[in-house]
């Protein structure tokens, strides 16, 4: 029986790989979730039954609480809060790995069975990554929930202090590997890792959250992977490696979509540096009312809607669906252009629009839609800013120069729904707003779309 569980783990590992493979298209994705669930149940069931498990009260109580907390999180959490939930789950996953490592360290010391060098290296990596990802993810969650300021929090010699802290923590880790019986070092090591996680994330601005979340995802996976090395469990290694590589790919995609490097995201404190560069001179722009916007939209043949984080903030996705339906019924071709970093996590906009029942074949990726903007009559921008700034293509002095953008400025008419003329999060003025073909629609995204909708049906009747 004891051997059987190892074969069950192999089946679980295969199911996890299939699960991710089936995520490649929405058609098979739900099968992927089912495969993942089956793999998980097999692995947990196998472990509980075949291994020599004691202390059932503790284990069952933990399962009960975890389930009782997990179900409401999954069903009550609104889709706009998905980035926060994701950050929270990175924190939970990392905490679990770190605590298991901690327990293993003390257990081996109390039993006077010192761990080998190999296990100690794995254990140190597991706890280091685990603890720093735990606090780092909590900070990210605080920023996403707007409990903490979204602006980067910076102070003098920040990078130097962070780096020194990390070097000290790593040094203590090495010392633990060499002399595992030095139990007093462990709490100091863990404390430094926790502190480093906080300091690593607080200087990062809200707009960089997609990259940060993906990176924390990767760390949480690697931490689980290191646990597999420490506990002699190949299934943990495989599942952790899958999670780690997924986070890595997503963070690379996010970095490319912002034309920035990892180091720049982690140590750049983007928004802060740029805020001082904001141009102050007055430039002229044109604004329009909901009525004018409605008449422009109804006479268009093709409309491309560009959603951004502002859409999530205003919870405007359902109103936009109404607009989508209204225009589609008039025979207008409506598409959505999704920039990879729109929103606060990878794929954020797609989930919000899918929630509002917008068919996913209408959601276009940047590379697919950009060639269509010159033929597009109206580009309607809702809550997006930097990802539409033509300065990224033309102005070499702009901090976002080189970032791939949506070429909305090539559309015949550009409508921008925005609260005011104040520059976006990164503090960069958007040249798009001052173009002759651009009309600014001032107001809350949800309220303004409702206004436009009120204008549309009456006109159809007239």
């Amino acid at each position, binding site marked *: 029986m004891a051997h059987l569980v190892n074969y069950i783990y192999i089946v679980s590992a295969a199911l996890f*790989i299939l699960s*991710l493979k089936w995520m490649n298209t929405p058609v098979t994705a739900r099968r992927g979730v089912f495969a993942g669930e089956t793999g998980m149940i097999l692995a947990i069931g196998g472990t509980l039954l075949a291994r020599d498990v004691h202390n059932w009260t*503790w284990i069952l109580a933990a399962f009960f609480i*975890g389930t009782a907390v997990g179900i409401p999180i999954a069903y009550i959490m609104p889709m706009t809060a998905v980035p926060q939930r994701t950050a929270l789950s990175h924190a939970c996953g990392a905490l*679990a790995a770190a605590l298991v490592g901690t*327990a293993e360290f003390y257990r081996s010391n109390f039993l006077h069975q010192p761990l080998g060098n190999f296990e100690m290296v794995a254990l140190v990596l597991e706890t280091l990554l685990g603890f720093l990802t735990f606090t780092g993810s909590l900070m990210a969650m605080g920023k996403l929930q707007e409990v903490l300021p979204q602006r980067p929090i910076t102070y003098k010699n920040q990078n130097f202090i962070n780096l020194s802290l990390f070097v000290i923590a790593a040094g203590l880790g090495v010392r633990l590997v060499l002399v595992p019986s030095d139990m007093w070092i462990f709490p100091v090591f863990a404390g430094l890792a926790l502190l480093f996680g906080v300091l690593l994330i607080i200087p990062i601005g809200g707009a960089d959250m997609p990259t940060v979340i993906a990176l924390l*995802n990767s760390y949480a996976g690697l931490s689980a992977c290191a646990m597999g090395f420490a506990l002699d469990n190949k299934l943990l290694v495989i599942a952790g490696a*899958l*999670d780690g590589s997924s986070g890595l790919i997503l963070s690379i995609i996010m970095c490319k979509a912002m034309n920035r490097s990892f180091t720049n995201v982690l140590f750049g404190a983007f928004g802060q540096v740029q805020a001082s560069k904001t141009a102050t001179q007055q430039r002229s722009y044109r604004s329009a009312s909901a009525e004018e916007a409605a008449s422009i939209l109804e006479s268009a043949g093709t409309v491309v809607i560009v959603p951004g984080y502002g859409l999530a903030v205003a919870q405007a996705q359902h109103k936009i669906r109404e607009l989508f339906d209204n225009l589609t019924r008039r025979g207008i071709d409506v598409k959505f252009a999704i920039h990879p970093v729109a929103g606060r996590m990878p794929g954020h906009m797609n989930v919000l629009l899918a929630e509002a029942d917008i068919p*996913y074949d209408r959601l276009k990726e940047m590379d697919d839609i950009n060639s269509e903007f010159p033929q597009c009559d109206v580009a309607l921008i809702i809550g997006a800013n930097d990802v539409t700034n033509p300065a990224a293509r033309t102005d070499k002095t702009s901090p976002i120069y080189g970032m791939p953008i949506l070429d909305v400025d090539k559309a015949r008419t550009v409508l921008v729904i925005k609260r005011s003329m104040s520059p976006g999060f990164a503090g960069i003025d958007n040249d798009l707003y001052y173009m002759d073909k651009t009309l600014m629609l001032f107001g809350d995204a949800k309220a303004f779309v409702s206004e436009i909708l009120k204008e549309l049906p009456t006109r159809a009747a007239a």
Partner: protein
Amino acid sequence: MSSNLELYLYVFMLATFVGLEVIRKVSPLLHTPLMSLTNAISAISVVGAILITGAEGATLLSKILGFIAITSAVTNIVSGFLITDRMLKMFKRREEKK
């Protein structure tokens, strides 16, 4: 032990490459559900937590730490799989509407 390390590094290397290849093909449309799914999968660390908590003669410290670890991991498993499915249910093609 050194041969064991070698074996584990092979497993890690191969799993990473499989992961990179498989994830690269995931449509950007599904990046958010992908992240919650991989998160649920990596909560397989619950297995490690069970073994720590359930070890014969586990100290009180082990039990407490293991208890918190299992609770966190199970929260991730339950909420991760369920919310992924909830999100995926929302992705509909035009033909499937109504």
